[in-house]
């Protein structure tokens, strides 16, 4: 009872909190929702040769009558040509493979850092973050130098005598995976590390006191406790990886068809901003839909 005594004039509890929470919402509103509405609006128009290059949705005639023309044909159009479906699927596949491989490589890395001596953790984390100090483009170009027919790997293998003809490891699906796993690995390692580092190690001691072998202890204690880290890391990798444009363009071959390539074609080669916007909106719906379902089930589980 005593705890509920409140002085007159003091702010209600929760009011300050409400403002703090409002921050991210305002951010979300300005940098996601407003641009999304603009893009969605363009997707309901048709292309025109003008500045900007689409027909305005709202037009006024001489009698001050406002008419709104909404054109839904673009959404139907995406289904009529297999190009878009194939591009979506191959982008989803690229992102899924990237998430999986970064998880397999990133988990041991995060685990080793989290279990290293505290004085070593800082420098080790620094090594993970360090590549960010170099431009992303330069790092992708470096992979061209490493993978090309007379590049580092091929020259080394030829010098060793392991191969006589350069391996075909650039401008194909393999090099796209290499580049994407490389670029997104830190986004997997960091959330996994922060999750594993917070883990209560006395639980593992208890397990070993009770006779569990290290593998058993890992499977039944460490792994379940790190699931939030795995989910966070996978989402951080998967979502940007779906829309990745630069890596498939630079490291992929001519047959690499991704949603980024399709967007470029619609926007630049066909100058069809409405169809380009439709592709973008469809991508967001495809990505956000499953995420919201996931969120829904998770919050149900928590209850």
């Amino acid at each position, binding site marked *: 009872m005593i705890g509920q005594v409140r002085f007159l004039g003091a702010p209600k509890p929760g009011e300050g909190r409400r403002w703090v929470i409002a921050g991210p919402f305002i951010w979300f509103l300005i940098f996601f929702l407003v641009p999304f509405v603009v893009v969605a609006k363009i997707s309901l128009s048709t292309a025109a*040769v*003008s500045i*900007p290059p689409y027909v305005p949705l709202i037009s006024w005639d001489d009698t001050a009558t406002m008419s709104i023309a909404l054109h839904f044909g673009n959404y139907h159009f995406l289904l009529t040509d*297999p190009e878009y479906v194939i591009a979506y699927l191959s982008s989803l596949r690229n992102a899924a493979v990237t998430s999986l491989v970064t998880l397999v490589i990133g988990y041991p890395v995060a685990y080793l850092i989290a279990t290293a001596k505290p004085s070593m953790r800082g420098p080790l984390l620094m090594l993970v973050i360090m590549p960010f100090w170099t431009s992303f483009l330069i790092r992708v170009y470096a992979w061209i130098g490493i993978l090309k027919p*007379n590049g580092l790997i091929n020259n080394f293998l030829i010098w060793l005598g392991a191969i006589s003809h350069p391996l075909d490891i650039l*401008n194909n699906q393999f090099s796209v995976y290499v580049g994407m796993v490389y670029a997104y690995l830190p986004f997997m390692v960091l959330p996994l590390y922060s999750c594993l580092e917070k883990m209560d190690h006395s639980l593992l001691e208890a397990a070993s006191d009770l006779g569990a072998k290290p593998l058993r202890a890992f499977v039944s204690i460490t792994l379940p406790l790190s699931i939030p880290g795995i989910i966070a890391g996978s989402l951080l990798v998967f979502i940007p990886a779906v829309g990745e444009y630069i890596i498939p363009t630079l490291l992929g071959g001519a*047959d690499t068809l991704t949603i980024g390539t399709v967007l470029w074609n619609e926007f*630049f*080669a066909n*100058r069809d901003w409405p169809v380009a916007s439709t592709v973008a909106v469809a991508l967001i719906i495809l990505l956000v839909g499953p995420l919201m379902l996931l969120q829904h089930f998770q919050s149900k589980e928590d209850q």
Partner: protein
Amino acid sequence: MAKKQCRRAAVFAFALAALSVTGAHAQQSALNIYNWNDYIAPETVPEFEKATGIKVTYDLYDANETLEAKLSAGGSGYDLVVPSLVPFAARQIQAGFYQPLNKAKLPNAVHLDKSLLARMAVYDKDNTYLIPWMTGVIGVAYNVDKIKQIMPDAPVDSLRMIFDPEVVSKFKDCGVYMIDSPTEVFPPALKTLGLNPDSQVIADLQKAADVHFKIRPYIRKYDSSEYINALANGDICVAWGYSSDIQIAKHRAIEAGKGVHIAFSIPKEGAQRYIDTMAIPKDAPHPEAALTFLNYIMQPEVIAKTSNKIYVQSGNADARQFVVPEVANDTGIFPTPEVEQTIYAISPSTPDVDRARTRYWTRVKTGH
């Protein structure tokens, strides 16, 4: 207190921003140019700044599409841009991207190439909006020694070099690149079939796509910029590309001194000329300064420096006397009158034809 100071600073910054906007309109001491990479002699801009006192901001792009997207959005802030004539500048004029040039401010226009201006007038009536910058043709680049080794009787002066599966298959392992630009790979395929290279019939485009399907297995990469270095390094043997790029590759190979010898040929069946032009966007903040620059670079001695530097024919007829003989006597750069007869141009297409062409091209590249 702190809050008040903060507000004052904000008002001050706002006033300053407003001032700088009006200032930019009042005086024409600045000029924003947007041009292709590697497309001007390095001394031209500094010498212009010294001569006129106009401060130049010089930005670069590497694809017409990039330029067009910026101008489509409006408010690009550029005063002078360099679109390729067909199909880009041609349709941009129709869409109202540019402002008419004030010819009274351009007395040096008398030096321009009359026959080039006549070609341009087809798309730009009375040469109202455009000034020619550089021009070249699209043709075949090849590594002389490697081709001699693989196929001594290779038809280097013919489209067959790339568009005949029997010939191009021999160069597969050595490496073949093609520029990734639908408007510049369909005309030669049409020409190979004996069709009009400028055909706007979708069924013809499909036939041209079939030609590309047949040679697809032998092409290592479709890319519009990497082939310069790939040729110069000796990584590839044959490329379909822009004469200006291939000249750069040829000279880079000579500078590297590794014995790579690159040659360029204009296919005897006919080749496509590209003309890059200068234009002033409608909403340019400094149109007067842009005109000053245009008049400056139309001096034959000035534009000849760029020709010498990048090994390209400029749109300035009187500049040829100032071009070094090594460039002026290269028939790949300045074709002979007989070859000039075979050179064709293509027209802007309707959105439907554009979409069909892009779609076929994606199918050629990806198989989907």
